[in-house]
């Protein structure tokens, strides 16, 4: 058994588990997108980021691919994690604004604007379809091609693949090409309709729905309890933030 700490909670994990699996086992929620049970972990969407380590050495890691280590300190909801997660959602939104899955994520995590050029690629390169095809459907019909900004998913030579059995598994699992957002403002880049509807269809209330939000999101409710050593530092930081705001 491996002992580690998640959000201050002492937990035990089996050798070979990932942080995500451990957190799930203990009922702690970490949002995921490119991770699905039954498929290998790919670490493509970075939504499942958590902060590992303490103090200035703390770094971000994707929990779906990071194996547990003895004595690891994991925090799943720090400000840094939340802000980075928002950034990832914003980036994905700029790639595939028509996806309901991603619009829902945006509402859920308080992403209300997209500062990037909207590209409408209808694919966020999460690789779910590739893994679904290869690992569950026994086909090897589609895969990643090219690299950098030209990277795309396709069949060999962009023609109908002999290996495809037309099972539809790739479409079933794709977060970008299944459900289209049907909200009242669905054709804007960020819909956020779920946020303004009453009752809201979100299963999650975050600081966006907090009455303090417009006053500068104090964040008290999401910040972990300050540990003794760096409580001073945190107090200082929040003071600075307030000043800046």
């Amino acid at each position, binding site marked *: 058994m491996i002992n580690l700490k998640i959000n201050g909670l002492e937990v035990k994990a089996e050798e070979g588990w990932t942080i995500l699996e451990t957190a799930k086992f203990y009922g702690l929620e970490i949002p995921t997108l490119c991770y699905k049970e039954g498929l290998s972990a790919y670490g493509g969407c970075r939504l499942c980021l958590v902060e590992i380590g303490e103090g200035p050495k703390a770094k971000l890691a994707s929990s779906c691919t990071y194996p547990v280590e003895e004595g690891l300190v994991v925090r799943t909801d720090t400000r840094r994690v939340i802000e980075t997660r928002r950034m990832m959602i914003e980036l994905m939104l700029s790639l595939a604004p028509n996806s309901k899955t991603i619009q829902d994520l945006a509402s859920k995590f308080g992403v209300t604007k997209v500062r990037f050029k909207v590209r409408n690629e209808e694919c966020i390169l999460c690789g779910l379809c590739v893994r679904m095809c290869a690992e569950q459907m026994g086909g090897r019909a589609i*895969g990643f091609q090219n690299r950098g900004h030209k990277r795309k998913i396709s069949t060999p030579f962009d023609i109908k693949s002999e290996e495809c059995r037309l099972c539809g598994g790739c479409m079933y699992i794709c977060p970008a090409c299944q459900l289209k957002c049907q909200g009242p403002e669905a054709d804007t880049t960020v819909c956020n309709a779920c946020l303004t509807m009453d009752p809201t269809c979100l299963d999650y209330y975050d600081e966006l729905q907090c009455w303090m939000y417009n006053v500068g999101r104090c964040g008290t409710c999401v910040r972990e309890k300050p540990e003794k050593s760096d409580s001073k530092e945190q107090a200082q930081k929040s003071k600075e933030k307030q000043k800046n705001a």
Partner: protein
Amino acid sequence: MEVEELKIKSCITKYNYEKKALISILQDIQEEYNYLPQEALNIVSKTLGIPLIDIVGVATFYRAFSLEPRGKHLVTVCVGTACHIRGAPNILEEFERKLNVKAGKTTGDGQFSLETVACLGCCAIGPVVIVDGNYYAQTSIRKVDAILKKHRKKKK
């Protein structure tokens, strides 16, 4: 160009049918045909038992491989940071004008393919241009004509 199965097979036997030699095999095929013909990749896939999509993934990942026929001569202009500062964009433009093709394409007569690369690791002698493996250091717009002439002649 006709793809001969035997030729491809011999490229593969040379590496003992090892899957991990895929890149070397693709390099040999490219050497032979100047590009990677679709038919050849099918043969490699069947003989080695690697899914075709994985081979295409490798072939499209590296800029050195081309899935389209290339010209007899390959002109590569470095547009990496160091060469860029020293005027590589102008040189590339000059090549485009002289050959009447855009970067990444092949001339109509099948003589020249024009490509770009981001840094060759020899920035000190930039701007660098490579034609068929010959390096030209400190090139300038004025040298473009001479370089092309030299290689046009060679084939005749």
